[in-house]
């Protein structure tokens, strides 16, 4: 049991515990906080694989911006706890055993094919310089396209979330 395996198992257990907690909790703010812990432990897993820049970006963007947005919306809309309806009970009874069986089969197949080799700790160092070079040379087109995508998303979010008076004001101006 070397250090790599021990760290992987500890943070993997935190990830899975967070994911199950997200499913079990009734109040969305608890689910949001569990998702944040999942993301933070995933950042540690990325560090174990040597992807340091990706780990930092995961914390800054995913856990520090996207999840803040989720927490904002939960606080603003002040949604209470979730109610148990008939549809959700059926989904629980059928879905949980089905998904457990399905993922056990997939995990079994993956673990049996042990010829895929090992991954050493920090084996592919993803330092910012190399990633920056790749991002701006080989992957320049997807980079520019995603920046246009974000621009479209910003415009869409501003229009969708604005007050109805604003859109009716725009209607009157036409």
């Amino acid at each position: 049991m070397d250090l790599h395996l021990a760290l992987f198992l500890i943070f993997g257990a935190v990830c899975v515990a967070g994911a199950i907690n997200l499913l079990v909790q009734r109040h969305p703010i608890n689910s949001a906080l569990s998702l944040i812990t999942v993301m933070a432990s995933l950042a540690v897993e990325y560090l174990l694989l040597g992807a340091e820049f990706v780990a930092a970006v995961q914390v800054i963007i995913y856990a520090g911006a996207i999840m803040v947005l989720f927490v904002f919306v939960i606080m603003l809309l002040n949604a209470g706890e979730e109610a148990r309806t008939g549809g959700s009970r059926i989904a629980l009874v059928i879905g949980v055993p089905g998904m457990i069986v399905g993922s056990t089969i997939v995990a079994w197949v993956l673990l049996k094919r042990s010829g895929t080799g090992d991954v050493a700790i920090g084996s592919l160092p993803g330092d910012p310089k190399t990633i920056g070079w790749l991002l701006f040379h080989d992957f320049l087109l997807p980079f520019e396209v995603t920046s246009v995508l974000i621009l479209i998303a910003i415009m869409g979010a501003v229009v969708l979330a604005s007050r109805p008076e604003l859109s009716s004001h725009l209607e009157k101006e036409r």
Partner: protein
Amino acid sequence: MVPLSYYLVLSGILFACGILGFLIKRNIITIFMSIELMLNGVNLSFVAFAAHWQHLSGQIFVFFVMVVAAAEAAVGLAIIIAVYRTRETLNVDQVNLLKL
């Protein structure tokens, strides 16, 4: 030294939990968060394969997945706010008619 299959199994478990959350939860925001959990599981398997095949494109692709997740979260949450304003509920079972 951790076998690659362990990383893939962890990624698969996170993905399965995401799908499960998508199916059994009734609050729109929690369903959205399960989608983010699925995307995170996929990110982990990208980085694990990048380390296995010693090719940095896997880590680059994680960026694009994160960017798409951010754009989707922004627009999706704006839609959720708009739905809440008109229907006064966040329960998907009650948003089942086009008429208000």
